């Protein structure tokens, strides 16, 4: 460790032939109140050196548990049987001390939540150095130096300084980088990444995936990446394993699985993802029902109750993983694989065919030209600032957070506007300003022609009837102590509906959102996330509003359930002629559901317009970067795509850059000659019309295809 060049030595041990990790017939079960939970039931897989294996499945499918078993991190109450061989060495049955020598040294792990993976009381540099010191006999100085090198390697600017920072001073993306630095610190032979990008923004997600790829290149390690999002792994993984109810139901090469899925569950998963690159209305496949309870699984295929292709034979025995299409690599656990193979369609289209998904009809009102429709919500130069105060007794104002810095848009009847942007860009603030209906700090909010600065309490109460909200987290948005009946009835009670009317309308609303009215006396805790979100939607629709504000309504849901909720929203829109303000960070969902889209950056709208126009011909560099960061669930396309990686994180809204706010991260700005750069620095670009119903705020706007 004398030169800084020295990064990764060759493995000290003799290179073992064959797979790095070989898992055979792994069973994991936990005790619980209602019997043993069989979380993993007979799982076998292997990872070759330098190979990336993606494990995909819904929450509760046993994907995390199986990888924790490899790490030996399961609690002692877990019963583990089978075989886990790491470089030919059996891991099951080894005691903690022996495992500790392998953990972190040969096998390392990247966790989902980068905040809880770092200790808040030590500096980042110390923590990385600790990872080295535990396993190697090097001096403290050498370890510290190595930590800085590693931070530099994972792309943290000014690594010497940043190594002395504490985790809370890092942004989410930087923390995840630090965690990856720690994971590769000892040149491991296997990296297990458990949902490494789920907690991150899309732009950061792209950076982290890129970094994992780099990490794999420099260490030559095998990678197991666990995710619920088929899009994330499409371009990254070599092989894929789909898990359901604790078993692998399909595995094979990435291309084969995406193009010729042979298990209905994989088909459903593929069909449930809204595609960023599909312009025309795409039918989304919802997988009905819930994953089975792992305590008492019925005989037969565990997917049978949710499967559209179920036949009687499915209930007799659980199908084993069989080779399909004559390929040794590709295997699926379904007795009807041949019939799936017989359909002409490929991938997601086959899913639409088999699951019978439909595109919701256009609402009546959409036929009227946009200009002639009534404006439901109008924002005119809305401003919201928060003071930053210092001092305990005498509060001094030391700064201002410009959360929303003058945004304007309107939503007309029967229209969906998607509001997108990274976290911290002011989406939620905008939403809260709209919902609060108070006089804004600057600008104007008007709902159905009534200006919020001019309304009194009575009028505000009346407006609330026309505007309702669906929140992101279905766990938190329903009062756990109210029955579903009371939850849905509440807005009607507030607005003085008669008892009879409420009693008539509540079951009606339940049916409208696809739930059974018999369940009305239950508490929210007895419903699943998707069902709860439906209840939230029913409550929002109780007063027959004209505008529904949707705050990331599907981002907390599993993909298969997400599709059902999106379909429901579309159907309701066409049935009831609703207008939606749809706030999301997932651009593919927005492409699917929205008519128009507004892209926010640091409290400003930088591009707005008709959804196809913005997605197919994005003018603003930020929109282009955002779009290119979204993975497409198609490995062939995904590998060909050029990715625009944004450097760094969102600047602080307390101190936004002068001129164009995006210039600090802009790749276009960086490529400009100095005199044009000056314009970016000095002049704030106005929003200018670029095409019919398409505006962008960039001095040098030009179309760039990124899909």
């Amino acid at each position, binding site marked *: 460790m004398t030169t800084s060049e020295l990064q990764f030595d060759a493995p000290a041990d003799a290179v073992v032939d064959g797979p790095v990790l070989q898992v055979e017939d792994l069973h994991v079960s936990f005790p619980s109140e209602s019997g043993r939970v069989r*979380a993993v039931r007979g799982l076998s897989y292997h990872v070759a050196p330098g190979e990336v294996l993606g494990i995909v499945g819904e929450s509760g499918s046993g994907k995390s548990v199986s990888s924790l078993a490899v790490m030996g991190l399961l609690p002692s109450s877990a019963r583990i049987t089978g075989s886990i061989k790491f470089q030919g060495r059996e891991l099951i049955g080894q005691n903690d001390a022996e495992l500790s020598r392998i953990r972190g040294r040969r096998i390392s792990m990247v966790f989902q939540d980068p905040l809880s993976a770092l200790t808040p009381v030590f500096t980042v540099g110390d923590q990385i150095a600790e990872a080295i010191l535990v396993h190697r006999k090097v001096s403290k100085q050498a370890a510290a130096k190595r930590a800085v090198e590693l931070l530099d390697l994972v792309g943290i600017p000014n690594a010497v300084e940043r190594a002395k920072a504490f985790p809370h001073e890092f942004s989410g993306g930087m923390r995840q980088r630090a965690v990856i630095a720690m994971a590769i610190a000892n040149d491991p032979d296997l990296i297990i990444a458990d949902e490494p990008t789920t907690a991150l923004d899309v732009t950061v997600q792209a950076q982290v995936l890129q970094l994992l790829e780099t990490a794999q290149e420099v260490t030559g390690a095998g990678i197991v990446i666990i995710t619920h999002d088929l899009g994330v792994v499409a371009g990254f993984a070599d092989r894929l394993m789909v898990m359901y109810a604790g078993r692998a139901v399909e595995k094979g090469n990435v291309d084969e699985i995406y193009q010729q899925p042979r298990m209905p569950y994989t088909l459903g998963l593929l069909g449930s993802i809204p595609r960023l690159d599909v312009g025309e209305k795409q039918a989304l496949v919802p997988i009905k029902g819930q994953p089975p309870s792992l305590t008492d699984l019925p005989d037969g295929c565990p997917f049978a109750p949710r499967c559209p292709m179920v036949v009687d034979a499915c209930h007799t025995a659980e199908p084993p993983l069989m080779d399909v299409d004559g390929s040794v690599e590709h295997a699926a656990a379904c007795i009807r694989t041949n019939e799936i193979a017989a359909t002409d369609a490929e991938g997601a289209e086959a899913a639409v065919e088999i699951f019978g998904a439909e595109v919701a009809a256009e609402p009546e009102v959409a036929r009227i030209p946009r200009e002639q429709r009534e404006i439901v919500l109008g924002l005119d130069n809305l401003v919201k600032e928060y003071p930053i105060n210092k001092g305990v007794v005498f509060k001094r104002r030391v700064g201002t957070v410009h959360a929303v810095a003058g945004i304007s848009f309107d939503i007309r009847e029967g229209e969906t506007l998607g509001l997108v942007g990274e976290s911290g860009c002011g989406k939620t603030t905008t939403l809260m300003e709209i919902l609060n209906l108070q006089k804004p700090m600057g600008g104007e909010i008007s709902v159905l022609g009534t200006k919020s600065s001019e309304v009194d309490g009575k009028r505000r109460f009346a407006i609330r009837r026309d505007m*309702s909200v669906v929140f992101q987290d279905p766990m938190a948005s329903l009062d*756990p102590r109210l029955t579903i009946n009371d939850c849905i009835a509440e807005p009607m009670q507030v607005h003085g509906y008669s008892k009879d009317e409420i009693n008539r309308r509540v079951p009606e609303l339940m049916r409208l959102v696809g739930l059974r009215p018999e369940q009305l006396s239950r508490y*929210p805790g007895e419903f699943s996330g998707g069902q709860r979100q439906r209840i939230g939607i029913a409550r929002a629709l109780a007063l027959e509003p004209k505008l529904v504000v949707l705050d990331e309504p599907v981002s907390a849901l599993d993909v298969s359930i997400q599709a059902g909720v999106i379909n429901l929203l579309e159907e309701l829109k066409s049935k009831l002629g609703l207008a939606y303000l749809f706030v999301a960070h997932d651009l593919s969902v927005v492409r699917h559901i929205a008519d128009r889209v507004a892209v926010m950056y640091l409290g400003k709208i930088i591009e707005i317009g008709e959804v196809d126009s913005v997605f197919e011909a994005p003018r603003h560099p930020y929109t282009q970067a955002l779009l290119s960061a979204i993975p497409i669930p198609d490995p062939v396309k995904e590998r060909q795509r050029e990715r625009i990686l944004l450097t760094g994180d969102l600047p602080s809204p307390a101190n936004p850059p002068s001129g164009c706010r995006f210039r600090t991260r802009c790749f276009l700005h960086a490529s400009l000659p100095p005199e044009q750069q000056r314009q970016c620095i000095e002049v704030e670009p106005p929003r200018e019309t670029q095409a019919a119903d398409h505006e962008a705020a960039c001095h040098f706007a030009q179309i760039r295809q990124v899909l």
Partner: protein
Amino acid sequence: MTVILNEGDAAGTTGAASGGPVDAAPEPGKAMTRGRLVLIRFMRNKLALVGLVVILGMYLMAFVGPLLSKWSYDTQDYTAFLEPPYSEHIFGTDKIGTDMFALTMRGLQKSLIIGLLVALISTTMAAIVGAAAGYFLGVADKALMWVVDLLLVLPSFLIIAILSPWFRGKSWFLLVLMLAAFQWMITARIVRGMTLTLKEREFVKAAKFMGQPARKIIAKHIVPNMASLLIIDATINVGSAVLAETGLSYFGFGVQSPDVSLGTLIGGNAESATTFPWLFLFPAGFLVVFVLAVNWVGDGLRDALDPTSTRVRRKEKKDTKEKAA
């Protein structure tokens, strides 16, 4: 019947809806409101019903019992001093010949009312003040918390002691109010803290955005979500109110002789517990049964209000997180 949904289960797809409803409506198809459902759940809890019956029985006994007895708490039987229970005096007599049954019943009358009312008033007060301060913040919060802090630093015992001569002969209700006034502050602070977190929950925001007025949000969403805390607080307060009154009586304030309360009886006869046990055991026994019954009712009410309570016996210790993983 597994309803194990914890915070770790972000998507909420495991566990839920795997079985039938935890509380199947007795009349299917008819949706129930919270009140009815809570009532049904409460009625199912045998122990809570027993507790309720015991409390009601004690009230009946305390007020009807003396009418049936030929002895009164302020008359003495000069033929029987310190007699153990026998047919004439079923609870025995004390050293000046007063019938213990009459005394105990008289004491029970006082203590039942003082205990329950003080607990009810102080917990209600804590809930209202704490929730209002936490919900409205700003000036309301500052003012209310100032009052709370002030009452916390004032020595309550001293104040009641000083005021006691003044309300001697006045309504017993004043004593109840005084006792309640010095019991609610700490709970109010806890309630305020809980309100601050509850206020940020989305269901409270949802209620606000549908136009629900603040006082209704507090009554409908905030206070019920703290029900466990409030009920536990109230049940503890019942016992402590009776004891606080004892303390006062012991020093000659509060309930004055010849009038008695359970507290004065227990305090006065504690030293005779081993020599003349009936003097001590009957009043003490009634107090224990009373507090126990209140606890049962409180537990039942808490379970009835808490939708996650399943009352399943635990077979194996388990970590819910494992299951969600």
